[in-house]
């Protein structure tokens, strides 16, 4: 593998909250255009891991590199890296007082310093990407969860990020709305966006992920292609986990 292909490098991330060590040394490399999916029981640090990557939660130990530049300990330059590392949240976190269009525009105007016309043009383009251009003038409270999540994806896309972090993007949605959001994410993956996705959607993981990382107790317990983890007899822990979910669903 050519080293230049690696867009994001995560090295030995540790994080504790109080006495509880949530992340106990997580490392991986992300190649450009790759989709990595993180799966695992609740409370194993998957969301914390994503937040450590863009320093919303500063890790106790370990480093993160984006395109060869260190993101950790970058001081005020962190705001530059955060533009390049998009994030999509479980509960969307759209800016409640702004229309869909203004949600996407805001950081273009304030952070990138774009002109009004250019920012509007770009925001509309991104809304079109996620199929929300007809809803540009609606406010978050007027959107369904699936629509709101698509707008929040457009908001992340607008900054032209090198990688987007998805923190359980469909966990707050019913199956119908989950599908419309996953469709958008699949499209992005096909178009070559680099994505790290924390999710419980096994179907999405199997069809889109280049690699699945199964996390347990703050470490990556198993790592490989979805096919490998699901069918190779040497890997058992993720299969056990999925089995537990399935048997619960059948009850």
């Amino acid at each position: 593998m050519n080293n230049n292909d690696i867009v994001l490098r995560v090295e030995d991330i540790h994080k504790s909250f109080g006495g509880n060590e949530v992340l106990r040394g997580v490392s991986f490399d992300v190649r450009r255009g790759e989709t990595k999916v993180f799966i695992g029981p609740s409370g194993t640090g998957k969301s914390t891991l994503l937040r450590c990557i863009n320093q919303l939660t500063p890790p106790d130990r370990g480093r993160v590199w984006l395109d060869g530049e260190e993101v950790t300990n970058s001081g005020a330059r962190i705001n530059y890296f955060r533009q390049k590392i998009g994030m999509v949240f479980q509960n969307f976190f759209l800016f409640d007082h702004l229309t869909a269009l203004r949600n996407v525009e805001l950081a273009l105007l304030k952070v990138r310093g774009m002109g009004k016309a250019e920012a509007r043009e770009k925001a509309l383009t991104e809304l079109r990407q996620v199929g929300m251009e007809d809803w540009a003038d609606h406010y978050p409270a007027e959107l369904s969860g699936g629509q709101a999540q698509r707008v929040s994806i457009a908001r992340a896309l607008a900054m032209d990020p090198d990688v987007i972090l998805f923190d359980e993007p469909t966990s707050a949605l019913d199956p119908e709305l989950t599908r419309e959001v996953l469709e958008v994410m699949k499209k992005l993956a096909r178009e070559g966006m680099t994505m790290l996705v924390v999710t419980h959607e096994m179907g999405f993981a199997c069809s889109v992920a280049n690699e699945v990382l199964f996390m347990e107790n703050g470490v990556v317990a198993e790592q490989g292609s979805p096919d490998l983890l699901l069918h190779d007899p040497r890997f058992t822990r993720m299969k056990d986990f999925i089995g537990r979910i399935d048997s619960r669903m059948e009850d």
Partner: protein
Amino acid sequence: MDQAVFVFDILLPALMQGLVVTLQLIACSAPFGLALGIAVAVGRQYGNPVVSWLCKTFVFLIKGTPLLLLLFILYFGLPAVGITFTAFVASVVGFILCNGAYNAEYIRGALISIKEGQMVAAQALGMTRWQAIRSVILPQALRRAIPGLSNEFIYLIKYSSLAYMITVIELSGAGKLVATKYFTYTESFAAVGIVYLVLVTITTVAVNILESRVAVPGTTRAATAAQL
């Protein structure tokens, strides 16, 4: 003396003059009181520990002492240390400090009510804390603070009468002068009261209009405002 002559030639002209002063006091105090309130609330909520402590202490001192005392200090006390204000300026400074401190508490309450996710999402896009406060947090918080702020504005209309205690002849003062000169306490003070009622009524209507104008579509606030 004829009652009509008293009302139209003496009482009303005097009250109108006083009203102009009252309106000047309010117009000079309210915008700065709002600005001070925003600054103190943001400073207390998001500032470093020193700034936060200063803001908290300022609010504590103003809340803990009578406004009248503040006006006395500004007008009668400060000349002793070489700072001399006219009575009007001393009143305006006192009102700004008082109005600002109470506004700060209303705004702080609204700031606290904005969900943490709004700040997180803004920062995840590369905004600085300050950019996030300005563009994301404050616009939402100020909307929520409108009921409290309008309450405080109405208080300002009424406590502007304290300026009379440091010789500013505003609405209440003008009424008092007429009342004592012509021994018409009931009529004069009733008329003064009616003028205040009118001012407060205008404010209430204006605030309702403002609130429905800035309401965010799709929220319950917008629905309630539309019914008014």
